């Protein structure tokens, strides 16, 4: 590792604290993927890394390069913007795929795990002859993860 010359101590300290915090949050998010029991719970975990985790690392990068080059370096903002725009879309796609599978398997095993929305079914199952229409509304209070695992792989 090459020592960074010309970096004021306050910037070095701030950068290292922020990088450690961000990396810690990303690690915690990854641990959550291991610890949570159902697919819907696991989807919550990686958002730690993509929001505050990435935010800390990006602010650290801004502080580091601004102090090193003695001029404001702020183009990391673009990474933050695109992360906040794209991650939720990917997560929502995953959740809807899981919901779709839950409904189909709920037909077969008679244990649907999610509250079905009738509009979704119209959109998702229009021409699928193998699948009978799912029950319109399910009683609340059931836990989507219990017993029936969903693995995104």
């Amino acid at each position: 590792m090459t020592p960074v010359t010309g970096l004021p101590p306050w910037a070095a300290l701030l950068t290292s604290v922020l990088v450690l915090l961000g990396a810690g949050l990303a690690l915690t998010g990854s641990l959550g993927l291991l610890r949570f029991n159902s697919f819907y719970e696991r989807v919550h975990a990686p958002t730690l890394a993509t929001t505050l985790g990435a935010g800390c690392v990006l602010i650290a990068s801004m502080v580091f390069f601004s102090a090193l080059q003695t001029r404001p370096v702020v183009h990391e903002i673009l990474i933050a913007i695109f992360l906040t725009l794209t991650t939720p879309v990917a997560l929502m796609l995953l959740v809807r795929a899981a919901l779709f599978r839950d409904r189909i398997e709920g037909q077969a095993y008679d244990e649907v795990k999610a509250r079905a929305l009738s509009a979704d079914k119209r959109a998702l199952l229009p021409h699928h002859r193998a699948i009978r229409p799912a029950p319109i509304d399910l009683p609340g209070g059931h836990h989507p993860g219990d017993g029936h695992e969903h693995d995104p792989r």
Partner: protein
Amino acid sequence: MRRWLLFPLLSACLLAMWLLLNQTVAVGHLLLGAALALCIPWTMRAVQPSKSRLRRPGTIIRLFFIVLGDIIRSNAAVAWIILSPGQRGRTSNFVNIPLELRNPYGLAVLACIITATPGTLWVGFDSATGVVTVHILDLIDENAWLDIIKGRYERLLLEIFE
């Protein structure tokens, strides 16, 4: 002006992105960025986005800081849930919340806010009834979440988009 500048906000964002990426405000890059900002929005015409206007920039800034604060707080909360030993006693479940917001852009922003915040997850929206399904990681009080999403986010989004 209107004929050439199809989507003024998109053009402004593209120009800002170009200048940020190149880390300069030199005249050459300003001109090149302006040319790109004028040309690229033309491809958006093929998508035919519905017209919408953003109102109240002050409310947008307020919403930004509210969401930022909520994201930081829920990061801490979810990190605590993950790191604390023993997962029993915590219930995660779906909550149905009726919304008044109908503007597609407003709903998209709300979906991004809810999904980007750790602990809450946008599952689906029924456009016929206006009911949104949200998955909550640590569900204690359904009404508390109803208040947060309706009172905190939807109210501001209604001000901005409708």
